[in-house]
């Protein structure tokens, strides 16, 4: 099975990095999260309800919609904060990429560890610009807001192609497809990674990190 890959690019000012990343990641996760599965007898299950929340951005003229799950929000914010720190510390031109990868686990026999097979990868390329004065910042607020709107439309377009999605799992297999660690929503298994590009445009492998659900641990 081929993993489909989508790339989104944004140019933002330093203060806007957090919110821009949150906006795009949450939009994707909104579509890739379901309610909690409650398995019953006879192989049936019911699905919980997903609530949504509007969040106004402080530095961008934009309102993002995310699932109502504080736990999930915390995880995403933490990842974005690490990415932003790495961007700031890298001393590069401020170019980097954060990736949200959805994967399935495939159990292998001992002693081999489980395989993680990605089925969808979203890469968000960020270019941080520096602005000189308040007027430029004001224009940037609006422009970035419009750009994010276009990206949301792109995301929705891709998702509504209804291409491959993992099959709904049985109870024993649910952890191979979904992240069941949250108490109110259930996103597909995902991981967030990032790369910082140095000024030569090559990726710097020392800044590669993984927020992992498993893989190398076993």
């Amino acid at each position, binding site marked *: 099975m081929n993993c489909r890959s989508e790339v989104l690019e944004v140019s933002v000012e330093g203060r806007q990095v957090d919110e821009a990343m949150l906006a795009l990641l949450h939009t994707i996760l909104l579509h890739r999260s379901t309610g909690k599965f409650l398995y019953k007898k006879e192989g049936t299950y*019911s699905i919980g309800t997903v*609530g*949504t929340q509007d969040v106004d951005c402080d530095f961008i003229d934009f309102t993002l919609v995310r699932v*109502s799950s504080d736990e999930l929000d915390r995880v995403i914010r933490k990842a974005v904060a690490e990415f932003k720190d790495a961007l700031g510390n890298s001393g590069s031109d401020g170019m980097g990429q954060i990736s949200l990868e959805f994967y399935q686990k495939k159990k292998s026999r001992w002693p081999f560890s489980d395989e993680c097979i990605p089925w969808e990868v979203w890469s968000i390329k960020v270019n941080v610009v520096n602005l000189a004065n308040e007027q430029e910042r004001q224009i940037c607020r609006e422009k970035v807001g419009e750009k994010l709107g276009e990206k949301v439309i792109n995301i929705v377009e891709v998702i509504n192609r209804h291409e491959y999605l993992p099959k709904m799992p049985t109870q024993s297999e649910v952890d191979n497809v979904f992240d069941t660690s949250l108490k109110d929503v259930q996103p597909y298994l995902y991981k967030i990674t990032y790369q910082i590009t140095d000024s030569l445009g090559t990726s710097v492998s020392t800044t590669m990190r993984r927020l992992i659900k498993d893989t190398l641990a076993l």
Partner: protein
Amino acid sequence: MDSDLSSQDRKDLDKFIKFFALKTVQIIVQARLGEKISTCSSSSPTGSDWFNLAIKDIPEVTHEAKKALAGQLPGIGRSMCVEISLKTSEGDSMELETWCLEMNEKCDKDIKVSYTVYNRLSLLLKSLLAITRVTPAYKLSRKQGHDYVILYRIYFGDVQLTGLGEGFQSVRVGVVGTPIGTITLSCAYRTNLALMSSRQFERTGPIMGIIIDHFVERPFTNMAHMHPCSYRTPGEDEGGTYAGIEDSQEVCTTSFSTSPPSQMVVPGKEGGVPQVPAQPNHGTAAEHGRIPSFPNGQSPLPAQPTSCSSEVKTVFCDALETTFTRKVGAFVNKATTQVTTTSLDLPFAAFAPRANDLEVNDPMVHPPPSPAPSSPLQGSLHSNSSSHSGGQPQDDFVMVDFKPAFSKDDLLPMDLGTFYREFQNPPQLASLSIDVSAQSMAEDLDSLPEKLAIYEKNIDEFDAFVDTLQ
């Protein structure tokens, strides 16, 4: 063509489409209310949350949608449209966008109704949630208030896009194939807001100060839950009775099966569903059951991310009498929402000026007479005829009682402005005002020996003092 579809599947599909249409309307209208929307996730389904999404049902909106549908369903050649328009306080109106739920003939026979179609419709609703915050009308709707309001109209039949002006743009939210046709959800939105901008330009002339208007009756309140049909009549299909699908026992699918497709029976329908709750369209209303149904009431959806149940807003009846609207002068960013003396939503409501003492004491509207000094100290400064180069300050200027931001009178006997002014012009030091002349120097020199004699007498004291310091 329909013979391939079992009757149960057909019934399910019709129900899904019906509730999809109703939820679509709810999402669109709620996104134009001008407030942030927030609902809670829940791990235990109640049977009234269609498509596994927490979307509240505003009763008036459901009523309008059902009235427009009149028992029919969106189908091929029968589109359901939600038109969003803007109406200024002067009565000009302009269509902003039209959301269309259409169906075409392209069928997907192999798709599983109760499972795949349902989940894809759920996904489409999520996309709609995201896209409704992205079109230009969203920002306009967030700023609505006294200058303009946002209204909605639902109609059924042919899509009408002529009111959107030239160069309107279109965005497709998504498609879902079903065995009876492909459902498409899209939005056409106006890009030419020329009418709006020229009007605004005329209105925001240089208005000094704050003008307070008291509205006894509010011609329009927070927007969109206002009756849409009051200014436009719907197109066709206005049959009164709701024939066809009964809505008294609607429960959404809450159970799914993980059995292989050939054995799929959707047990959820038969008995897996917990006890039938109150009808879903009233169900959510019963749960939050106190959403008032005043025709001019406030929006029933507070933006409270942490609590699921809406607050009771029964103060509206009383608030109608004491409501006033504040018009803000040019270059002020945010149009303030209507303020009531019993408003619970306005932050720092306690600091909002009371209705009856606004204009009278407002220094912006009534500057104090000039150039009277505002404090006794000010007067004394003026009379101080020192050789200070500042001289007689402010005789040529109109005296305006300067109230610095955030200053309060009750903490200090004088206010900050007076304090500042006063200490900007301090009186001369006494020693500096004495003329330095040779004569005084001579006097100093003469007195020196006497002083020295005294110090020598007390030399022991001085030594003892120095010792204590060491």
